[in-house]
C-alpha cells in the first residue's frame, strides 16, 4: 500500500526525483516509526538527532521525497520537525529558509508588523 510508490521507485531506474541520500533516510523510517510509535519522548529524541545530522535545506528535500513516496507518517514527521525549527524564528529567517522574498510595498509590511506587534516578542536571534 504505502510502499507501492517505493517499489515503483526502485523499478524505475531513471528516477531523478529522489536522490539516494534522501531515500536512505526516508525508507528506514516506517520500521523506526512503528518501533517508537507509542513513545513520544523517544520520538522527540530521534527528532533532535535528525535535526543535528541534517541541514535545514535537507529537510525541505525530505519533505518532497516523503510526499512523492506518498508516505504520510514521514511527511507529518518532517513537517512537524520543520515547524518546530522555525516556530520561534524571525520573518527573515523563514524567508531565507524557504527561498522566498518579500513582495510587499514598502509601507505595507510595516503596517502588518504593527498589527501583530506582540507576536514578534521573544523571537530567536538570527
Amino acid at each position: 500500500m504505502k510502499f507501492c510508490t517505493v517499489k515503483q521507485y526502485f523499478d524505475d531506474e531513471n528516477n531523478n526525483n529522489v536522490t539516494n541520500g534522501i531515500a536512505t533516510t526516508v525508507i528506514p523510517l516506517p520500521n523506526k516509526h512503528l518501533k517508537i510509535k507509542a513513545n513520544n519522548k523517544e520520538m522527540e529524541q530521534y527528532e533532535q538527532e535528525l535535526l543535528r545530522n541534517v541541514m535545514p535545506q535537507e529537510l525541505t528535500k525530505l519533505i518532497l521525497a516523503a510526499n512523492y513516496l506518498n508516505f504520510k507518517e514521514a511527511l507529518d514527521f518532517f513537517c512537524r520537525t520543520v515547524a518546530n525549527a522555525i516556530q520561534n524564528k524571525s520573518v527573515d529567517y523563514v524567508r531565507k529558509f524557504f527561498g522566498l522574498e518579500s513582495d510587499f510595498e514598502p509601507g505595507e509590511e510595516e503596517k502588518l508588523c504593527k498589527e501583530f506587534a506582540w507576536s514578534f516578542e521573544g523571537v530567536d536571534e538570527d
Partner: protein
Amino acid sequence: MFTTNEVLPEDLIIQILLWLPVVSLLRFKCVCKSWYALINGQNFINKHLLHNQTTSNKNRNSRFLLIQRQKSSNDHVFSKLQYESLEILSTEAVPSQYSGIPNHAAINIVSSINGLVCLDLNVRGLDIVLWNPATNETKVVPKSGISYPQGRALSRDIGFGFDFKTNDYKVVNLLKIFDPDPELYFYDINFFYAAEVYCLSTGSWRTVSTSAPGYFIDCSYYRTYTKGMFSWSASIGDDPDFFPGILSFDMSNEVFLTTTLPDGDLEDPNGTWRIFFVHNELVSLVTFGKDRERLENCFYIWSLLEFGVKESWTKLFTIGPLMGIEKPLGFWKNESLFLRNNEGQLLLYDPLAQKITNLQEEMILRNMAIHKNGLILIYIFVVSVCKQHT
C-alpha cells in the same frame, strides 16, 4: 530536478504551517503576500482548527481560561493555563476597552467555541464581547435595536453557540418583554417572552420564530454549550408547578427543548445546590446539600445522554464526603475534579487516589506571586477551553 533551494509547493507549505502555534502564524503573515493570503484564508483556518482538534493534538493545544479579580486593585485578569500541566502560561488584564470597570461589574464567560470566547459584561446594561485569546482580537456585539410593540425588552440571559448547518457562530438572547406603564398594578402587567439571535456572518440580530418558553432562568454561572446545544439552568413548568431542569436551545434548528432532572436526584432537607457543566461532551449535573456549616458534603454526578429525555440522565458516581468545599467547578482529565473551598481556593480532587491537592499553594500561587494577598476566583471556565486557532 532538485536544486539546492527547491521551493516547496503551497500544499506542502500548508502541511508545515498546520503544526505552528497561532503566535508564529500571525508573525509569518509578514513573510510575503502569498503567505499572508494563505494564513488569512478560511480554508487554512479550518484546516488548522481541525488539525488541533485531533486527539493527539487536542490537549496539547487546549487551555483553561481563568478569570480572577485582584483584591488589591479590583482589576479583572485573565489567566491561561496549559491543559496538561496546569502551568500558567500567561496572565493579562481584560481587553483594554474594559479595563477599569467598577468592582460590582461582573464578567462572565458564556462559552468558548473553536477558540472564540463569548463574554458577557454587566456594567451599564449588558455588553456582549467576542474575544479570541490566541490573537487578542475582540469584537463587541452590537445592540439589537429590534423593538417590540408589547413594550420594553429586557435580557434574561444569553448563550453563544455554533450552527453546524450554516457554519456560523450565533449569540442567542432570551428576552422578557413587558409594558412599563407605571399606571398598571404589578399583577396586571403582562409578560411576553421572546428570543433573538445574532449571526456573526451577517452581523445583525433577528427574532427567533419559534416561541421562547417562559421559564425562570436560575443562574448564569451554570450555562453549558456542547454539540450545538446551549443550555441554561432553569425552573420548568407552569405556574404554580415548577421543576428544576435545563432549558436548551438548538443552535441549528433554533428551537427550545426542556429537560427536567432525574428521579432520584438528591433533595436535601437543608436545600440543594445544583451545578451544571460539560463533561465528556455531555451536560452534567452535580447536586449536593446546602449544609449550613458546610462541614461535609457528598457530591452526586449525573450526565445527560439525550436532551429532552429525563430518563437518559445517568448517574456517574458519588464523591465524598468532603469537608470545607464550597462547590465543584468542573472536570479535568481522568475524572479529576476542580473544587473551590470555602476560602475561595482552587483544589483538585483525584477520585482514584482519593486525594485533594491545593493548587493555589503548589502551582498557581507560586506563579502568581505578584497577585498574592487575595485571588478571588470568580469563575473558572473548564473543559471547553480556548483552542489555539487563528
